[in-house]
C-alpha cells in the first residue's frame, strides 16, 4: 500500500500560492469599484421607483430587492468573474507549470486527484475572497435599512459560487492543457466570452441553436437570479465542474502520453454528457423567491398537483415569438413545476412567423380526453381553462399571500467611499500583511525551524 502524505501542508501551500499571486489581489481591487458603482446605481434607481411606490401599495409590490439590488450588484461581480477569475485559477496551476515546480509536485505522495482537489480548494478560497466586495454590498444594503430575504439571497450567492467554480474549473483545465499561462488565458476567455457570443447570436432561436444556447455558461445563472433552485441545474453544473476537474486530473501527469490522455478525456466527456442528460431529466426545483414569481398561488399549486393525468400543451408559436416567451415564463414553467406530468410541444418553426396561418398563436391544451384552445399567455385565463378541462372548481383565492414589496428611499452615494476608498485600502493592507514573511525571531534553533 502506498504511503499517504498529510493533506494539511498541501492545502496550506496552495492557499499561500494563491494569496501570494498578484492576480487575486488585482482582481479584488478591480471588483471593488465595479461592484460599488453598480450597487450605488441600483440603490439610486430603486429609491426613485420606491419614491413613487410609497404613495400606493400596488406599485410597491413590484419592488423586490432581488431584482432591484441583488441581481444588478452581483451582475457586475459576474462580469468580473467571467473576465478575471480564470486568470486567478490559471495561476493556481500555471505558475507551477511554468516554474517547473509541477515536476516536483507530481512526485509527492499524493494522487493527482488529491493535488487537483487541493487546487480547487484554493480556487474556492479565492472566490470567497473576490466575493468580499459583493457580500459587503449586501451588508451595506442591510445597514441602509434594505430588506434581504435569506432564501433568495443565499440562492443567488449559491448560483454565483457555482458559476465561479465553473470559471475556475475552466481556468484550471486550460492551465493544465496549455504550455503557458498566456495560452491558457486565451483558451479560458474563449470559453467564457464565447458564452456571451452564444447568448447574443442564438437568443430566441429554436432547434439546434436553442440546444447550443443551453451550453452557454451565462444560462447557469438565470434561474438563480429568478429565485429558482433547480436540482437538475445544480446537479448539471456540479457534473460539469466534476468533469472538468476529472479532465484536469487526466492531463496533469506529465509522464502520460498524449494519446492516453485523449482516450481518457473522451471517456470523461462521455460521462459528463451522460450526467448532463440525467440531470436534465430531474425536474425537482424550489421557488425560493420571496414573491413566489416562479409559482402559482399556494391554493393553485395544491390543486394542480392533484391533477394526476397527463397534460399535453401544443403551442403554435415560434420559439422566438415574444408571446411564447411570455407563455413560458408566466404559465408553462410554473405548470411544469406544479403538475406531475406536463408535456409541451412547440408546433411552429420559424417559417410560420413569415407566413402565419390562422392557427398560428393558438395554444391547445389536452387533458385526458378533453381539449381546449386559447391564445392567452396569462395564467389568469389559462388556469380556469385547465380546471374546466379537469372538471374541478378553481380554488378560493388565497388571502395574505400578496407580496408586499419593499420600497426604500435612501441615498447610497456616501457608500462609494467604502468601495472606492475604505475597502481597497483594507485589501491593500491585507495584501501587504499576507506577503510579509514570518518574523525573524533569532536563530533557526530558537525558532524551531517552523515557518
Amino acid at each position, binding site marked *: 500500500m502506498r504511503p499517504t502524505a498529510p493533506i494539511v501542508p498541501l492545502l496550506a501551500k496552495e492557499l499561500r500560492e494563491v494569496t501570494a499571486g498578484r492576480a487575486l489581489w488585482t482582481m479584488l481591487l478591480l471588483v471593488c469599484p465595479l461592484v460599488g458603482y453598480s450597487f450605488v446605481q441600483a440603490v439610486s434607481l430603486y429609491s426613485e421607483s420606491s419614491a413613487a411606490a410609497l404613495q400606493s401599495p400596488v406599485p410597491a409590490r413590484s419592488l423586490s430587492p432581488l431584482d432591484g439590488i441583488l441581481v444588478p450588484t452581483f451582475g457586475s461581480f459576474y462580469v468580473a468573474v467571467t473576465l478575471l477569475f480564470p486568470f486567478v485559477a490559471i495561476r493556481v496551476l500555471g505558475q507551477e507549470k511554468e516554474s517547473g515546480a509541477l515536476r*516536483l509536485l507530481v512526485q509527492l505522495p499524493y494522487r493527482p486527484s488529491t493535488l487537483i482537489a487541493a487546487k480547487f480548494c484554493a480556487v474556492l478560497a479565492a472566490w470567497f475572497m473576490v466575493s468580499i466586495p459583493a457580500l459587503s454590498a449586501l451588508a451595506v444594503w442591510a445597514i441602509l435599512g434594505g430588506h434581504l430575504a435569506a432564501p433568495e439571497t443565499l440562492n443567488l450567492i449559491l448560483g454565483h459560487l457555482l458559476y465561479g467554480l465553473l470559471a475556475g474549473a475552466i481556468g484550471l483545465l486550460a492551465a493544465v492543457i496549455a504550455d503557458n499561462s498566456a495560452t491558457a488565458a486565451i483558451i479560458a476567455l474563449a470559453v467564457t466570452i464565447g458564452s456571451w457570443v452564444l447568448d447574443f447570436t442564438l437568443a430566441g432561436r429554436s432547434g439546434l441553436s436553442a440546444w447550443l444556447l443551453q451550453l452557454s455558461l451565462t444560462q447557469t445563472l438565470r434561474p438563480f437570479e429568478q429565485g429558482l433552485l433547480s436540482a437538475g441545474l445544480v446537479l448539471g453544473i456540479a457534473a460539469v465542474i466534476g468533469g472538468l476537474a476529472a479532465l484536469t486530473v487526466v492531463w496533469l501527469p506529465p509522464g502520460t502520453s498524449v494519446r492516453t490522455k485523449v482516450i481518457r478525456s473522451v471517456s470523461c466527456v462521455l460521462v459528463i454528457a451522460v450526467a448532463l442528460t440525467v440531470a436534465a431529466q430531474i425536474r425537482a426545483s424550489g421557488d425560493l423567491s420571496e414573491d413566489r414569481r416562479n409559482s402559482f398561488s399556494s391554493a393553485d399549486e395544491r390543486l394542480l398537483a392533484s391533477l394526476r393525468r397527463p397534460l399535453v400543451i401544443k403551442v403554435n408559436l415560434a420559439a422566438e415569438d415574444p408571446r411564447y416567451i411570455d407563455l413560458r415564463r408566466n404559465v408553462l414553467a410554473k405548470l411544469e413545476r406544479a403538475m406531475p406530468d406536463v408535456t409541451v410541444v412547440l408546433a411552429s418553426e420559424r417559417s410560420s412567423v413569415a407566413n402565419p396561418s390562422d392557427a398560428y398563436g393558438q395554444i391547445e391544451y389536452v387533458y385526458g380526453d378533453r381539449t381546449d384552445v386559447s391564445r392567452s399567455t396569462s395564467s389568469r385565463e389559462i388556469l380556469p381553462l385547465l380546471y374546466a378541462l379537469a372538471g374541478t372548481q378553481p380554488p378560493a383565492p388565497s388571502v395574505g399571500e400578496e407580496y408586499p414589496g419593499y420600497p426604500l428611499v435612501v441615498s447610497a452615494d456616501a457608500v462609494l467611499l467604502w468601495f472606492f476608498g475604505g475597502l481597497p485600502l483594507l485589501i491593500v493592507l491585507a495584501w501587504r500583511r499576507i506577503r510579509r514573511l514570518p518574523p525573524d525571531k533569532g536563530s533557526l534553533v530558537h525558532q*524551531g525551524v517552523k*515557518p
Partner: protein
Amino acid sequence: MSTVNDGFSPDRSAPLLGVRNLTKRYGSDGTAIDGVTFSAVAGEILGIIGPNGAGKTTLLEAVAGLLPVNSGDVFWRGEPLHVGRRRDVLFYLPDGVRPYQDQSALQVVWFVGSVFRRSEADIKSTIEALGLQPVLRKRVHALSKGYARRLMLTIGLLAPHDLLLMDEPFDGFDLRQTRHVMGLLRDQTARGRTLILSIHQLPDAERVCDRFILLSAGQVRGSGGLAQLRAQTGLPNGSLEDIFLALT
C-alpha cells in the same frame, strides 16, 4: 585527480534500477534518447555524462516517469516498474527549477519536509548540512543561483526515497561548494541511498561518481567504472575527458 569516492564499494550483487532500450523521440525533431540501456546498483553514485544536448535530462525525466517514452522498460530490483509507481521508489530533482518563487525558502523546505513526514530535527539538520540558514527567510525568486541549487538539494535530501535522480546537482556551485556537496552526497550513499547524477562537467563527475554512463547524441557510448573505461579505450592514464573524447 583527487576524488571523494576512494575506497567506496557499493553492493553490486543486484541492480536496484534497470533501464532497457529506452527511446524517446520528439516528433520530427529526431530522437532524444535512442535505445538506452543501463543499470544502477544499490549504494552507488552513477553519473550520466555527456555534453549539453546529449539527452541526459530527457533520460532522467523518462526514468522518473515524467516524460512519456516511445519504447523501453524500467525495472526495480528486477521487477518491471510501471510509470505510476516510479515516484514511490525514486525521486527526481530537476535542473533550473525555482519552486514557489513567492514563498520563502523556509516555507518551501518546511512544506516538502512535512509532506514526507520528516521530523523537525531532520529538516533542521538538512538545512544546516546544505548551509541554507542565511537565506531561509528570503523569497525563492530572490535567491542566488547557488542558494537556489542548495534549496533544491535540500528538497532532494528530504525525500525519503532509496534512489535519487539529480540533474546537474553542482551547477551554480564554486569549487569549494561543489566539494562540500559531493561529501554530502557521499554521506547519503553511505546511508544506503543510490544516486544517479546527470553531470556535464566531467572533472566533477570523475570526482564523485563510482560508475559512468557516457551519453552522446542520445546513445550510450560507454559505461562502467573509470578503470573499465580506461581499459575499454586503451587509455591507462586517461582522464574522463580523454575517455569521453575517445568514445564519442
